[in-house]
């Protein structure tokens, strides 16, 4: 298995180098996507299956789809390795030297820190009983350090608003529906199992790898599949229910944190007998908001509607 690790690390480095130096933009993007896959595998090897799930779904999957979609809309030939400026040769050499030096120091530092205290982590594992969920990562995300997760939902909302501001007017009829019916019918067929597995991942987050982010990403993937096959499309009309669902996770999270202060004395603390149902409720509402946000980051439109056949 050490050999496997070594090979994985080697491939990671190769792909990273390729991603930076590839001649065409598409090559760089493809190298990046495959890098994401390998990264997820490495994280499996490093005892982080939750994160492998997240990386596969969000980091390599959704981001890969977005990258490829962006590539398609760039003018032909953009992003080729540019003609160098006169001083670029030496500048590149200096940058390369600096980065090699940094890599050596970083590797040494990481090597040096392979043993050390982890007070916070130990405390997290010790207090897991009280957190309301069995999965340590979920406990940290939703309970011990819930504040970070809440602010992260703010980040998601603000990038979504920013993306929507960049929208161009929609042109009706510009939808390039797939020329063959196969993807559409298979997407219809496979929507229920994908939705189910997404919901299962959210639910499973309480006791096994999974959680709001992974499940939300799978749900978003289902939505992206519908959008890509033309079953669902963006619309210019943004409606109230959709906006409510987008802020549902953050709002519920904040409100439960604030409203329970009289019971617990601390913001974002949960009373013992309510903690498990609250965690599940918050996890599902977060997953809904995350799924919709990621999907709309993909479509770039303020609304969604079904395509009339």
């Amino acid at each position: 298995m050490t050999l496997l690790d070594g090979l994985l690390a080697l491939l990671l480095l190769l792909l990273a180098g390729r991603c930076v130096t590839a001649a065409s933009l598409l090559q760089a993007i493809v190298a990046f996507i495959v890098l994401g896959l390998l990264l997820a595998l490495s994280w499996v090897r490093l005892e982080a299956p939750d994160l492998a799930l997240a990386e596969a779904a969000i980091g390599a999957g959704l981001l890969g789809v977005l990258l490829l979609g962006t590539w398609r809309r760039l003018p032909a030939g953009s992003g080729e390795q540019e003609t160098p400026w006169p001083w670029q040769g030496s500048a590149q050499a200096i940058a390369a030297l600096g980065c090699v030096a940094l890599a050596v120091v970083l590797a040494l530092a990481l090597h040096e820190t392979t043993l050390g205290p982890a007070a916070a982590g130990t405390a997290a594992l010790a207090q897991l009983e009280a957190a309301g969920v069995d999965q340590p990562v979920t406990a940290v995300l939703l309970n011990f350090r819930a504040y970070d997760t809440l602010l992260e939902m703010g980040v998601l909302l603000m990038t979504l608003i920013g993306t929507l501001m960049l929208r161009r007017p929609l042109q009706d009829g510009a939808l390039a529906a797939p020329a063959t019916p196969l993807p559409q019918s298979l997407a219809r067929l496979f929507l229920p199992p994908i939705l189910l597995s997404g919901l299962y991942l959210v639910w499973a987050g309480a006791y096994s790898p999974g959680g709001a982010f992974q499940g939300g990403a799978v749900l978003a993937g289902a939505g992206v599949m519908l959008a890509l096959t033309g079953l669902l499309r963006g619309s210019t009309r943004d409606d109230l229910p959709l906006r409510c669902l987008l802020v549902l996770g953050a709002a519920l999270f904040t409100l439960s944190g604030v409203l329970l202060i009289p019971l617990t004395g601390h913001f974002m603390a949960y009373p013992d007998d309510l903690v498990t149902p609250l965690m599940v409720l918050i996890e599902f509402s977060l997953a809904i908001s995350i799924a919709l946000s990621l999907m709309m980051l993909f479509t770039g439109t303020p609304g969604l509607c079904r395509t009339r056949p």
Partner: protein
Amino acid sequence: MTEALPVLLVFVPFLAGLGQFVLGRAAPWCQQFVSGLNLILVLLLSSAVVHGDPVIADLGGWGEPLAIHLQADGLAALMLLLTAVLAVAVSLYAIPAFRDEPRPAWRFWTLWPLLLASLNALFLSRDLFNLYVTLELVTLGAIPLVLLAGPNKTVDAALRYLLFALLGSLVYLAGVALIYAQAGTLDLALLPAALPEGTLSGPLAAALIITGVLIKGAILPFHIWLPAAHGNAPAAVSAILSALVVKAAIYLLLRLWTGPLEPLVSNDAGQLLGALGATAILFGSWQAFRQSRLKLVVAYSTVAQLGYMLLFFPMAVTAAWQGAVYHGLAHGIAKAALFLAAGNILYYLGQDRLEALRGIDRPLAVSLLAFGLAGVSIMGLPPSGGFTAKWLLLSASLQTGQWWWTTVLIAGGLLAAGYIFRVLRLAFLQADDATAPHHGPVPGPLMAWTATALALLALALGLISAPLLDLLGEMPGGTS
């Protein structure tokens, strides 16, 4: 009771932003209420801080190595105060400024309370990773605000801003990872004791964190994203960006340098930062002098003025500490006034090329007054807040025997006088009738007087420095 204040400071504006998003149309009055409430909460918090120990809120009640804490000490209280005052002014200013554009207005009134919440969260945070999240919140709230001036015009600036901001925060995060690896905790209060000495990763982590923050704060080699972003955003947004958003990064540097990074950094690193600051002062001022657009003059002035705050690091005595923080306050208020005044001029002229300024002294007398008064503080003339700050820095440089910073301070002041007077001179020149262009409406009293009020406040800061410096207190961990 006071423990609830930090929590409320973050979540009142946060929930207001969410509510505004759900509402789906602009509701400026809600924001006036929120910024007013925010100011009241900050005043309550400051009075609690000035009378005793820092106010601490333990989120989730999980105790020390694990939970995230919010903490308000003197430094945080001062920055919160600055934010709250500017929030009131900018919120008022934005009512008329965004009145005619319903959809951008909705976005502004959604993003602005969220950004306010993010800034409050950043100033209150006592956790290294939480600081990373708040840093991201602040920039990702700021960039869409830049886009409000029209996506086609600002997309380049926003993209460059985003790329640098993302890189900066990831470099910072790399440092945080190394710190966690050594200390096993992210709590700023526990870190100094928990960090082992004599490791390789310690200084490396410090270097990464400082570099990341410098990128976010647009300090000299990384300043190239700032002028375009600040120069093209709507005036109200430019004021927020220059006065608060970049300052948040410098604030973080001050906080970390005197806190967890203190055992890791050497005096040489301080000198290096000071040199960067000095170069930023001279280069930024010189660039400001050479610009041909008013808002770019003001934006480059920000590049320069941020440099003064870096002069704390080589000296590291209480006078320098007070000077740097006070400079942050004075510059924040004066720069917001400058940007709002420049926004008024842009509103009237429809453009901000310097040649077009001729003859605007009559219709825009109040805004020009604001520009001039704020300029006094930027130049550092008495009795302004800028003067107090520079005086403190000056005495620190004499106290530590590092006289060379004195020359930088004086040269920076002279250059600032140069670019401020260049603008004012043009504005008071007679317009030749031939060039009289088409003018927009004269900005209303709300727009003109918020700018002037801020400028007057910037002047008054020189007179009311005693209670504020009292609130700030001594340099943490300092001996002198």
